[in-house]
């Protein structure tokens, strides 16, 4: 039996109004794998990602994260959220808290650490993402790239087993994309399991184990980055790649 950390089985999600965002999606992700999900906008990538930590509720299919089924049991959902970190396209830092307080919050409330212990850990994480000197700044005083790095540190503070990235560089100015990607690459090499929705092919080539290409809520094809980018089998994938290159 293989050791999968995320098992997604035949998941579908339809939004009110009848938009089928995800249709019968299945995938299994091993520990320490880095998976990149690509696809045109509206293909259901983000929705799928948000289903994994229960921000969206799939109406059919099963999702199991680290052996915990994501079902109607609220405790299961909370447990999964503690194990799964998420980074958003629009950062979503808490604007009334400093960078340090943003990273501290979940450690204090969820992990019940006391302030000194949490702060020490937070400072290590801020150091790791390269903005320890901005620890006492508020999000509005940071650039987009800095904010996103704080957001990564905030998610890591829970010591998650999986990190989800929802287009983490799409809202950034071009010159800030690399500082965020570099942090993500370091994280990938440290053995973190990552599911990344992104259009950054360079990142996908460099660190991902495999790529899922999605369209209209379904998997079009999967494979190693080399195979997907050099020899895409499906016509839909070829068309998409020719558009973004």
């Amino acid at each position: 039996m293989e050791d999968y950390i995320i098992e997604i089985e035949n998941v579908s999600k339809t939004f009110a109004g009848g938009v089928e965002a995800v249709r019968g999606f299945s995938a299994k992700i091993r520990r320490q794998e880095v998976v990149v999900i690509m696809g045109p906008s509206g293909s259901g990538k983000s929705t799928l990602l948000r289903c994994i930590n229960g921000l969206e509720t799939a109406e059919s299919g099963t999702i199991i994260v680290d052996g915990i089924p994501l079902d109607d049991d609220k405790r299961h959902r909370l447990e999964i959220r503690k194990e799964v970190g998420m980074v958003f396209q629009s950062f979503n830092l808490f604007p009334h808290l400093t960078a340090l307080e943003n990273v501290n919050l979940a450690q204090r409330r969820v992990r019940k650490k006391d302030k000194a212990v949490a702060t020490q850990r937070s400072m290590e994480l801020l150091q790791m993402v390269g903005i320890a000197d901005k620890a006492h700044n508020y999000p509005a005083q940071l650039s987009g790239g800095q904010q996103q790095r704080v957001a990564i540190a905030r998610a890591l503070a829970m010591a998650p087993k999986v990190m989800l990235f929802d287009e983490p560089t799409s809202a950034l100015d071009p010159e800030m994309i690399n500082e965020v990607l570099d942090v993500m690459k370091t994280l990938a090499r440290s053995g973190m399991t990552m599911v990344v929705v992104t259009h950054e092919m360079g990142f996908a080539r460099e660190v991902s184990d495999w790529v899922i290409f999605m369209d209209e809520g379904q998997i079009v094809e999967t494979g190693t980055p080399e195979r997907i980018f050099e020899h895409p089998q499906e016509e839909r994938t070829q068309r998409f790649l020719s558009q973004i290159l």
Partner: protein
Amino acid sequence: MNTNSASTVATLRKSKPWSFLFRSPGRDIAQFALLIVVGVWLISLSTARLGYYWQWYRLPRYLFRIEAGRLVVGDLIKGLLFTFRISGVSLVLALAVGLATALLRLSDSFMGRVLTRVYLEVIRNTPLLVQIYLLYFVIGPILGLGRFASAVLALSLFEGAYLSEIFRAGIVSLHKGQWEAAYSLGLSRFDTYRDVILPQALRRILPPLTGEVISLIKNTSLVGLVSLSDLALQARVIAADTFLTFEVWFATAAIYLAVTVPLSMIVYAMEKRFRVLT
């Protein structure tokens, strides 16, 4: 395009002397002085026509007086102190009711949403005066509430309804991403409200919240209906006893203003200080 921007510049230049005059302090002071003069003239005109005989010198003893070498608080100030007390107690309760109602309205509970909706509609569509009477004469005796308690309850339920709408507006005005970020970190609903949502919402609703606090203070003037000796009732009694109608009511209005205006100013200062950077 070119002609357009040229004409805009022309308009700006033309309007400049006017706006300059409008903002000059000299003009403001002149306007204010004019207002005072007109006001005084109107008052003296009306009192002359009514044949009103001003007796301001008789008023101070209802504020403070010296008896046997000691400072004694007059009835108006006693009334003011009572107004402070009932406003304070009602405010705390109204904030609790308002927040609870807002959270219940935003909760997943169907019964909670229905109940709060009914409560809001009933309170907002009946006069406070009727609510005070109903609580005092009907519900008070059933629950064994005294005069003060039933008045406090009436005021808190009334203001709570309006406060809940303000809380709700503040909460729903926050970006969905704030909830999602908090949930994705494993924070419970309670922690999310306490650490993420409410601190931000409170800063946003500070101005309308102040408005409601001031409104609450003014509405306490109705508790005299159930014979609670607040500022307004004391004023009514003194005016009836002494026939100093104008002096007493002018003084009373000034006392209310002396409380509410500084309150607005304090909150304005707080607002500037705690402005959320976004």
